[in-house]
């Protein structure tokens, strides 16, 4: 009876939160003189109207899911990873290096090898803030953000230097990008006429793996214990620093995998701007998905929709695509406040009392 109310209450609060977010967004849209209803309609429905639109949303869902999964592992272990952007960049460099060095390996070997390289690159970049935090209590908020800058510079350096496309060199146009990577690295595009690639299955499989890791294995148990109560974990014989570092490396590895798949599936070469804010959007997806794989998949779809829909608003209604970043900011604020509201039992009690007062008169059994 009360449980049913609680579920209803939770859903109610979330619906109100979404409405509040849209309302806040509407104020900003009004301020830039856009047609509010039309903009929302374009963002939320236009991409779903045809095959290309849907697959493009799914395409964006892939890196969002994988990065959000990694962020979940870190978050659940008590460390907030804002460095996915940098870890992704390093992962891409590692993948590209492998593809450039071994272009003749067969597909079945090269693809796993290159993705693994991406994971190792990301993990290495995640190891640094993890170790700094575990051994020297350096705040990961600082170290991960700073490492993003370093990674971005390294990325540009490699694309302009050692990895620069020889064709660019001869033509001298100087676009910082690698050459078209070997076709043995290409992930299959399984729907003709679209860009959607087999990476989406990897993303879904990774979601399952993270669920099993965190909730079904002793490693996950230890990481979650370290995140939930460091003191109790230490008391229970758990080597908290070790699991912090492991969690951060997994988190980085996932960002690296996301980068590797993005290269192998979509761009087929390392170009500037691949990371494109996925590292930050991944944090929002992880939080929006309740830090659980089952929530992250739909959340990633939703954000894929937002990102792709925003591209369309630019074309169809003339609202800049940056608007999505504003919406993301609003959504973060709304998530945080929603969490606080849901954590307040007194408020729920008061609502429940009101609800019962209202519903008791006509037929008590209906809601109870």
């Amino acid at each position: 009876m009360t449980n049913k109310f609680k579920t209803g209450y939770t859903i109610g609060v979330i619906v109100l939160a979404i409405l509040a977010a849209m309302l806040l967004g509407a104020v900003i849209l009004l301020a830039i003189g856009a047609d509010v209803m039309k903009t929302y309609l374009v963002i939320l429905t236009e991409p779903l109207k045809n095959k290309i639109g849907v697959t493009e949303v799914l395409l964006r869902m892939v890196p969002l899911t994988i990065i959000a999964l990694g962020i979940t592992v870190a978050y659940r272990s008590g460390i907030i990873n804002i460095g996915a952007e940098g870890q992704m960049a390093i992962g891409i460099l590692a993948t590209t290096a492998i593809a450039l060095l071994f272009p003749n390996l067969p597909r079945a070997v090269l693809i796993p090898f290159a993705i693994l390289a991406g994971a190792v690159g990301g993990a290495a970049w995640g190891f640094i803030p993890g170790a700094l935090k575990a051994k020297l209590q350096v705040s990961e908020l600082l170290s991960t953000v700073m490492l993003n800058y370093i990674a971005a510079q390294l990325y540009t350096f490699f694309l302009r230097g050692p990895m620069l496309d020889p064709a660019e060199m001869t033509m001298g146009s100087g676009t910082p990008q690698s050459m078209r990577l070997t076709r043995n690295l290409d992930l299959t595009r399984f729907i003709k006429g679209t860009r959607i690639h087999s990476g989406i299955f990897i993303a879904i499989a990774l979601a399952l793996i993270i669920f099993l890791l965190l909730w079904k294995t002793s490693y996950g148990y230890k990481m979650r214990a370290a995140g939930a109560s460091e003191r109790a974990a230490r008391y229970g014989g758990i080597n908290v620093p070790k699991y912090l570092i492991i969690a951060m490396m997994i988190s980085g590895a996932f960002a690296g995998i996301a980068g590797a798949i993005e290269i192998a599936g979509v761009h087929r070469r390392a170009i500037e701007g691949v990371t494109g804010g996925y590292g930050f959007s991944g944090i929002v997806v992880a939080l929006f998905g309740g830090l659980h794989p089952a929530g992250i998949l739909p959340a990633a779809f939703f954000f894929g929709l937002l990102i792709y829909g925003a591209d369309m608003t630019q074309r169809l209604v003339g609202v800049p695509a940056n608007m999505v970043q504003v919406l993301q900011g609003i959504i973060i604020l709304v998530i945080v406040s929603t969490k606080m509201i849901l954590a307040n039992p007194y408020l729920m009690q008061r609502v429940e009392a009101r609800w019962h007062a209202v519903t008791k008169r006509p037929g008590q059994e209906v809601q109870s």
Partner: protein
Amino acid sequence: MEQQTKAIDNLRIEHVTKRFPGVLACDDITLEIGKSEVLALVGENGAGKTTLMNVLMGLYHPDEGRILINGEEVRFRSPNDAFAYGIGMVHQQYMLVPNMTVLENIALGCKQSWKPWKLDLSLVRKRIEGVAAQYGLAVDPDAYIWQLSVGEQQRVELVKTLCLGAKFLILDEPTSALTPQETDELIALLKRMAKELSIIFISHKLQEVKDLSDKVAILRHGRVVFQGNTKDHSSSDIAALMTGHEVVLPHNDAPACTMGPMLQIRNLKVRSDRGFLALDDLSLYICKGEIVGLAGVSGNGQRELAEAINGLRKVESGQILFDGEEITNRTPAQVIASGMGYIPEERNTEGIVPSFSMKENFILKDTTSPQYNSHAFLKNKEIERDSEALRQQFDIRSPNIDVAAGSLSGGNIQKVILAREISRNPKFLVAVYPTRGLDMGAAEFIHKQLLQKRNEGVGILLISEELEEITNLSDQVAVIFKGKIQKVLPSSEASRRRLGILMAGVKDDE
């Protein structure tokens, strides 16, 4: 506040019922408190005492029933409403900002001192002086909270509540964190204050109830099972009514061990968090099948000793031998693996992971043992089976094994910890304040379990401030003072008076 709150001549709680999912916390409770009366509210953990007080403070709203002040019905939506009527509560956990002074902390709650652009601290200071003069309740307004002992912090809480104009005090287990000396002081103080105030205090300790209260109400499973004048009833009557059966605290009268040493601590030096030597050349020997009670005022190195034994604090010099094996400066995991059990002081934050379910907490130390782990995967079926068995064996009151451990009451949390530590079949147990703040029933249960383990040959280091607990259970009593063992004496020779002298740091010479 300075408001002329009317005096509360009579406060009546009528037929208050409060339900939580799956629990009837308060069941048709009716109580009445008159002017200058002290009502003791006693009952086991989870009997509904704190819930009832939260209803009275406006933190919860009763499902049924009402509250009357001077015959008029009142409705409190929040603690502020209760304050407006002059009702103030001192919670079990103190709500003070450690890096602010006493004066600043009190000004925080005192809205008259919030002048535009500045805080009128002189007004607050005047009020503190007024309270001090009226009740003989002295605090140093310029001391920082972190400098104060637990007892002094509690006095600050009291002053704070009184400065806000409380005429009616609710105290939730005021003595649970105090030393015996501080407890005596507090009781004397409350007696003086009772001349001008009405007080409800929640307690487990029958001695205080007898000393302080005029009336006593006993709650069991959310119902008032007894109400009466304190002076008409003996402590054992009240104890019997509380638990529903006559309480005889278990007593250790088995012969002392002859099975050889289990834990030998030699010349241990350990630093505290603030860097001074918390243990200074401490040596202690504990046999197999022996309980050694460590008596002492808290803060004399007890916490550091427990942590050093369990690998949670670095040992500077000295040696810890456990069953012949050196465990000095081993990691916590290694110490656990060698057969050490530990009931920590902070049961809510260290003994359990509060957000984890009960069953997850049962396996905190065993996630990698083959019993619950196969190829890194946790064996859920085995975990659930054993958890359910432990829940029943240790009489842990919760709807199921999936509830968050942090949502259980203090006594049940302690049973979860005890169940985990005992079921792991340790060779040695370090138990720190194992029954602090627990009701008689839970304390009795825990004492019995400890004695049973002792009789099975487990060595136990029992760290406690309750001298009765120590003398009842221990074979030997060691007194710790400033990081040194003052003296070790057989429990038969450990009189309350003698222990008190030793705990105060006086060397007794025989």
